[in-house]
Structures are given as structure tokens and as C-alpha cells.
């Protein structure tokens, strides 16, 4: 982490995104923000409030409700030298832009034999636990992590949000930047002032432990930490790794931890089948089978089409710190 300034302040995740975007707009006039309600409305979470007044309508662009156009236009901007930051208002609406992300942005460098790059950031709030029902709760990472050429970042802490969003903006290739909306105002933390980056593809051990490795990202990192800290009182030592980046994935950090603890639990909010946990499990089985002292376990969403609106359905779909603690306890004692 290259920290330019020694001062810092306490921000929540919304404020961390806002500050980073503001500094990017300030420091580089190639930076453009486009999306639904990012201008006059100032984004539905007020992340870009008043940006349009300061930077003008040509750099803070309110778009029609047309996600394919948002990303398609942003791809063109990026290929021609701008630094667009496209916003998909909720990740649930990203599907119309699938072709522009997967078919165009992710393949630009390869298709043009390196002549063009696509320095594009696509920001989108994702995740549940906010009574968002079918259209405001989805996790989309597994739909995109199969795609080489696309980086996916999902930080959980304000300082990581800023460092990784800066890295995403600086990156010469497309980055899908996922912001868990339940953490937006829930999670606060110290954020260094000024410009700094955290390398994409680097996980962070948020809690050290030696009896079990828990790998997660997003909101569930916080819940996993809550569970692991509670288990500390029972004398159980659990290590919690925050992936921060989903692709590229920090295989080294996972393997190093698993080689120490010999047990691996993956928790994520996205569905289990074919999820990020499946890739991690396969990787660990390939690389470290003979270090494992227990079957790898995944605690993930069930295979149902969406998170329901009714609270019992949402709770059933989501995990909880208590559920995570139970799984951790079983695995440590296995």
C-alpha cells in the first residue's frame, strides 16, 4: 500500500467511494462518471452528490435507463483515451450490459493485439441483507469471474475501498468494482488522506489464527470476523482472509494460510453452485490436498433463484455470524 499522506479520517464505505471518486475527478480531467441518476440526483446513495455542479454535465453524465448503452459508451470512451467510471445503479440491473462487459471490454486488449486497452471501471452496489428483495439483493461476481480479461474487486473495509478503487481507476484494463450495499453506512474505518493504491489481486489476513482458515469477501468478512472473535473466547483460533479481489485471486495467501491451519471454510453470500468458493476449493484441492486435515467446506447461499423479500426468506438465504460460528466450531473440532 503506497500511502502518500500520513493523515487519515474515519469514513464509512459510501464516504470512501465518494472521496476517491472526487479526488479522481479533481486530479485527472480525463475522468468521467456516467450512469443512472449520478448527476442531478447525485446517485441513489448520494455518492456523487453535487459532483455535476463542480465538474459539469460533460464529465458527470446522467444516462437513460439503458445499461448496455452505459457500458457500451464507456468502453468507447476508454478505448479513445478517457478514464470513464460507469455506474450500474444496482448490480441486479447489470445483465443488459453483459455483452459490453464480457464480449467487448474484457476482450479489447486481446482483440486488438494490445493496440487498444480499455481502462474502464464499472462500479455497482451488490448484495443483500437490506430487504432489497429480488431486484436489489443480487450477487453477480460468479457470473463474471469466469471471464479472463476482467478484474473483479469486492472490498469490505473503507481503507480497502479507497485503495482498490484508486487502483481500479489507474488500471489500464476493465475492472468490475463491487460495493456491498449493506456495508455502505454500516462499516466505518480509518482511511488515509490523499492518493494511494492497494494492488488488485492481493488478499488481506484480517485476523490471524492457526486452527482454521476462513476465506470470504464483502459483508461476510465482517460477519466472519465477528464469529471468529467470538470463538476466540472459546479458545478456538480462526484465521480470516479477506480476498478483497476476486479476480485475480490471491492464491498464494489462501494456500499459505491453509498450509498452516490445514482446514478451509469459504463463506460467501453468492450461491454455492459454481460460486467463488468452488474455484477456491478446486484450487486448494489441486495445490494443497496433502495439507488438508478436513474436507473443505463452503457456507453459501442456497440454490434458489433469488433472495426473497419476506424477512424469513431473506434470513434463510443469508448466512449469519451465528451460523458461521457453528460451522467454524465444527471444523476446528473435526
Amino acid at each position, binding site marked *: 500500500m503506497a500511502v502518500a499522506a500520513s493523515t487519515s479520517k474515519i469514513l464509512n464505505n459510501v464516504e470512501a467511494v465518494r472521496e476517491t471518486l472526487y479526488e479522481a475527478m479533481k486530479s485527472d480531467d480525463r475522468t468521467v462518471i456516467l450512469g443512472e441518476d449520478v448527476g442531478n440526483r447525485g446517485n441513489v446513495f448520494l455518492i456523487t452528490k453535487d459532483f455535476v455542479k463542480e465538474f459539469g454535465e460533460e464529465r458527470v453524465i446522467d444516462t437513460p435507463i439503458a445499461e448496455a448503452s452505459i457500458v457500451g459508451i464507456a468502453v468507447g470512451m476508454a478505448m479513445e483515451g478517457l478514464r470513464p467510471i460507469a455506474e450500474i445503479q444496482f448490480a441486479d440491473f447489470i445483465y443488459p450490459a453483459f455483452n459490453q462487459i464480457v464480449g467487448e471490454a474484457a476482450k479489447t486488449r486481446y482483440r486488438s493485439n494490445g493496440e487498444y486497452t480499455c481502462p474502464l471501471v464499472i462500479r455497482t452496489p451488490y448484495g443483500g441483507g437490506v430487504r432489497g428483495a429480488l431486484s436489489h439483493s443480487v450477487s453477480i461476481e460468479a457470473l463474471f469471474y469466469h471471464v479472463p480479461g476482467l478484474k473483479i474487486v469486492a472490498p469490505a473495509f473503507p481503507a480497502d475501498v479507497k485503495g482498490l478503487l484508486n487502483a481500479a481507476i489507474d488500471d489500464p484494463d476493465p475492472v468490475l468494482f463491487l460495493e456491498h450495499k449493506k456495508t455502505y453506512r454500516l462499516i466505518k474505518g480509518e482511511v488515509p488522506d490523499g492518493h494511494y493504491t492497494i494492488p488488485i489481486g492481493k488478499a488481506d489476513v484480517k485476523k490471524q489464527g492457526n486452527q482454521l482458515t476462513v476465506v470470504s469477501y464483502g459483508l461476510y468478512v465482517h460477519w466472519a470476523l465477528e464469529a471468529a472473535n467470538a470463538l476466540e473466547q472459546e479458545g478456538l483460533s480462526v484465521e480470516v482472509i479477506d480476498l478483497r479481489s476476486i479476480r485475480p485471486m490471491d492464491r498464494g495467501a489462501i494456500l499459505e494460510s491453509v498450509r498452516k491451519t490445514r482446514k478451509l471454510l469459504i463463506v460467501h453470500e453468492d450461491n454455492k453452485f459454481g460460486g467463488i468458493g468452488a474455484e477456491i476449493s478446486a484450487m486448494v484441492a489441486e495445490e494443497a490436498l496433502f*495439507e488438508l486435515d478436513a474436507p473443505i467446506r463452503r457456507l453459501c447461499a442456497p440454490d434458489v433463484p433469488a433472495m426473497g423479500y419476506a424477512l424469513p426468506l431473506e434470513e434463510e438465504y443469508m448466512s449469519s455470524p451465528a451460523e458461521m460460528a457453528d460451522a467454524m466450531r*465444527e471444523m476446528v473440532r*473435526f
Partner: protein
Amino acid sequence: MATTITMPQLGETVTEGTVERWLKKAGDSVEKYESFVEVSTDKVNSEVPAPVTGTLREILVQEGTTVPTGTPIAVIDEVGAATGTNAPGTEPTQQVANAAPESRESMAQSANFEPVPGFNIPEMPVKHVGSAQPVSNGHAVVHQGNGAAAESALRGASPAVRKLAREHHIDIRAIRGTGANGRVTADDVLTAARMGPAAAVGQAISVGTNFGATGAPAAMPPPAATPPKAPATPGPGGTSTYGEPIPGTLIPLNSARRIIAERMVESKHTAPHAWSMVEVDVSNVWKWRAREKDKFERDTGYKLTLLPFFIRAVVESLAVFPLMNAKFTAEGIAVEKNVNIGIAIGLPTNLVVPVVKNADKLSIKGIAIASGELIDKARRSKLSADDLQSGTFTVNNNGANGSYASAPIINGGQAGIVTMETVVKKPVVTADDAIAIRHMMNVCLSLDHRVVDGYVASGFLADLKKRLEGMGPSGVL
């Protein structure tokens, strides 16, 4: 349903087998995978696991009888089937071609010895087996009894547990698990590994008993890793066995003993043995080993004995004297291409000579690990047919029990066999006529006089002596 068990084929080329011992008698119940009979061929001794759970209804072949592979040897009634009757609609008997559910190959490897000439006992540079919870008989390994539970512990062992157990030479079945449902955890293995050496002090070294000598084998501590062959329980009247000889009784020859006898006679009668001995100053090697042994054991899990240093010197000398790495045939002297060193290992009831393949390509460390593995496997009856094949020269670490000189019998048509005798501190007159206290060891050579004469043999011994004396007191293993 009744299942007929047939004589398994214990090897690619094997056509018949001998029922060595019934581990169950008619009427006993057997668990699936539980060993119920021991069979042998001239290559392999193996316990045969039951293919089904049930009752051993009938024994069709008596102990000591040799039958062709595929011959029915027993009938097991599966659990739930009424004895002697068959449930309507089921097959009357199910022929099980290979009694074991395992492949022929794995069966052939399950327990295995190929006895050969050479009659002495090497030191056992084998890591002790420890137990998290020392068991009642004071020995770390509990192969005997509760076989089913132990085997299930083995099958449930995680990859990490298996790997650690392998690295530390620990029998998973001997460990009391602290995990869920008594599962053996990786930490349990590490704990056992840490406790191992301390727990095993005083019982480890004399694994072999010198069955060529007059000493009473029963006086020796039982091996720390007895193969899972329950000692025969003396019946009414008492049964004398090799492991528990009873004065005034006759021990029936098992096939291992018979083959050892045949091959000893064959070697001694066909190869005219000549014998020679040199005295070697091993003080520097001794110092070198002393300096390295703790770290070596920590790093590899194997004890560092004098054996790998000795083998290294032997292969270097063989390179200078290729005639010593040769064999007499009717067509001529077959000079071997490879240098594969057999290590004679005495076990309580037999002798095995596993082979360090291409030992001339290995460093001292490589030899130490390879021989450590083989010795470990030998003690656990896990040597494969391959481990025992292709030896071109044999080394016998004979000094462990204090032997000062010995005349070994040449192994399987090779040109020679050398022994390392006991290392003793002696006053020695040095080159400048001073008297010094040095570590001295005799090296004895038996040679096939058809292959080489005294000229070559003494040259070989002199070269070997020079190399051993030039080794150490430091260097890279």
C-alpha cells in the same frame, strides 16, 4: 448368500499359493476387509481380507496345503443369510475370483518377503513409532486386535494425516484420535511424532533377532512394528512357532523359512566362497555422522547411521572394480550395468534384502533416505516385489549387535557381500609411530571365487578402506 473364496493370485506370474495359516476358524465371524487367512507363494506372504461380512462357514484347504490360484479355499456366509440355506431368488454362491477387493498388485504388496542368504542382523536405522497415548504393552503400535476399528481409522484419515504419518513413520492406527468421533487429526500425528523418540527409548534398536545364533529370541524385545500377524495362540498341547519356540517341539516350516533354507544351501553349494577382512579407521566418518545426525533426523525423520556412508564408499569402489558388481552365469561373467545395493535386514522370523536401486547415483543423504524407507517398509511388511528385486551387490550392517567379524553367505548369485562390523575404540599406532585412540571397524567380504580372485577382491577391499578412511570429518552429505 454364501460367498466362495478362492486362492488369490499374488503376483503376475504366480500360479499357486499355500494356505499358511487360518486366522479364523470355521464358525468365526469375519468383518469385510478383515484378514482371515494368510497365504504365501515363493514371492509373497499375504493376509487375505474378507470380501464380505459374515460367518466363515467352511474351510476347504488345510494349513500347509498348496493349491492352484482360483481353487476354492473357504466359504463365507454373508450376514443375514441362514447357514447352509439360500434365500429364494438369490444366487446360491458367488464366486469371488480374487478374494480381496484390492487389485492383485496391491495385494502382492501388502505383505511381502523374499528371503535370501546372508544370516546376520543389521542395525535398524528406523524412526521409532510413537503414540499419543502409550498403549498398555509399552509398545507404540497396536496392530493386534481391534483390527476393524484400526482399519477404519486408517480409511478415514485425511490427506494431511496420511502425509504426516508417512513423513514421521507413524502408524495412524496406533494413535488415539482427539478429533470428532475419535478421528486422528494432523495434530495428533505431530504429537505422536514428538513423543515418539522418548516413548520408544530402550525398545527400538534390537529389532532383529539373530536367528542364526544360539541366543534366545524371546529375550529380545518384540519389534516396535510387528507386522499384523497375531502370534499363534498356543492351543491345547501348545504350538511351537518361530516367534515363540517351545523346547522339545517341532516348528513346522513355513514357506519363508523353507525358501531361506533352500537359497542358503544353494548359494553355499554353488558359489565357492572365499573370505577376507580389512580393518578400517572410521574415526572421521564417525565424527561427521555425529555432527550431522540430529539435524538429519529432524529434517528427514530418519536416523543417520553409518550405513549410508558405508554404502556410498562401496558403490564408489564398485565403480573401480566392476567385476565385484557381476554375476557368474554358464555363458560367462555378467557384468552388471546398474549398481543396486541390497541391504540385509533381519526380522524376528525372517530375513529380507530390499534393494537401493542405482545407489551409485545417490548422495549419502539420498542413500540414507532410500535405505531408511526400505528398512521402515521391511519392518512393517510393506516391501513390494520391486523393492526386493535387481540387487547386484549386498551390504550387511552386522556390527549393531557387537559382531567383530563374520563370514556372510553370498546373496542370490552376486559376486560378493560385505559386512560392517562393530565400531570399537582401539589404541592404534599411527603413521608417525604415535599411539592414538581411533574408531576402528572391520569390513568382511565373502566373494564368489568363480567370478573374482583374491587379487581383485583384495584390491576392492583396499579401495573401500581408503575411501572410508578418507571420508569426513565434515562435508556435504
